[in-house]
């Protein structure tokens, strides 16, 4: 099967940033690059090749037109794919990258990490239960405070050598 280059138009990168891009001072961490395909004929995308330039993580979302009647929807193909193992090092900073259609993670994740994909809707909560995100926020803060205290125990001792109850008069020896 031969592979054909699909003509595409790569737009300039846009920073995802809260507030006015011109006036605010921070350097945004997330940039979005739009790629459009001027040709109308449908095709099946097999491979994306590019040269990285100091991007650590990459997500790819594709807007698919399934049929004439249903509206186009966005589908996430790749989420936080790691291009640079350490963002502060050079490894992977200027590499050529090829992403294939059937890319799948080869690492096995521990069980507690295998949550449902975030874009899936969680099961509808029954009526009358408290808002889980607010409960979660409070509980997380309580957890953080406890962890902090657990970690900050002092090694200093007060020099207490007695055992509980050793000052009890009846236990003191007369000899």
């Amino acid at each position, binding site marked *: 099967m031969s592979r054909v280059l699909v003509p595409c138009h790569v737009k300039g990168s846009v920073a995802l940033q809260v507030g006015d891009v011109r006036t605010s001072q921070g350097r945004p961490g997330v940039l979005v690059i739009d790629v459009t395909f001027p040709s109308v004929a449908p095709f099946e995308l097999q491979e994306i090749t590019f040269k990285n330039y100091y991007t650590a993580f990459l997500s790819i979302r594709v807007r698919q037109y399934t049929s004439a009647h249903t509206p186009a929807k966005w589908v996430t193909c790749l989420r936080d794919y790691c291009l640079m193992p350490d963002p502060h090092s050079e490894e992977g900073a200027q590499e050529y990258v090829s992403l294939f259609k059937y890319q799948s993670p080869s690492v096995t994740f521990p069980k507690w990490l295998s949550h449902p994909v975030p874009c899936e809707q969680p099961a509808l909560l029954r009526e009358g239960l408290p808002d889980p995100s607010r409960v979660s926020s409070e*509980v997380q803060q309580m957890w953080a405070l406890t*962890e902090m205290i657990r970690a900050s125990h*002092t090694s200093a001792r007060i020099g207490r050598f007695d055992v509980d109850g050793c000052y009890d008069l009846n236990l003191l020896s007369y000899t």
Partner: protein
Amino acid sequence: MAVLPVPVPSAKMAAVEKRRQAVPPPAGFTDSGRQSVSRAAGAAESEEDFLRQVGVTEMLRAALLKVLEARPEEPIAFLAHYFENMGLRSPVNGGAGEPPGQLLLQQQRLGRALWHLRLAHHSQRAAFNNNVSVAYECLSAGGRRKRPGLDGRTYSELLRRICRDGQAPEEVVAPLLRKVQCRDHEAVPLSVFRAGTLTCFVLLEFVARAGALFQLLEDPAAAVADRRVGQAVLDTLEGALQASDAAAPARFLEAGSRLGPDSLALALDRAVGGRRPSAPMTREEFLERAAALFIAKVKPVG
């Protein structure tokens, strides 16, 4: 006509005091007028000296430094309390009559130490530690009838006051106090003092968060929460606090996963969906149980 020199204000003085302009008198004063002129000249010259002599310049400088260090949300109220406390520090009633009794001195010291400890939030760690040292020195200072050093009784009293003023219920903080208090006769070193006071303040914040959490869970009409829901939340927190064998980052990830909204929603759903009937849980009970989870992780003094 005498030219009255205007006192040159320093930048700091300008910030806190109104600049006083000396008004030059019109020409042709009478004798008595000339006298008042010379007096006014002397007063204007020594205004700055006067302020410096009575210690106002130094006091205001110290006050401003404290404000900068503490960064309170309400600076004016903060300064008001600061100056109110300064009154306590000066000799009582100008030294008239007999010197205050030992008990009154003790109460004054405690009050001052408490005030120092409350200047900065415990999360502002550098400022908080600073204030802890000052409070410790204040309590350890020797007096006429007092040996230098901090005794266990005063330390325990201070911890009780911190918790009481923080509006935490007695039953909630009692187990913590049992763990961190010192015996009356024991000498308390600074490190133990610092750890104990920090733990009390963190517990107060923990109890406040637990109170806010209970408000989310409670039925507003009945002022109680569904026991199944409250227990489920506490059990989830307890589970997240269990120390697993994994190293720190993995442990945090696991806790974060357990305490995330999706996971909590599932836990709540499961709790209510079971066949156990609904029963009420009061706020006091919820706070006590939540605090117990915190206190379990506190290392007892020894």
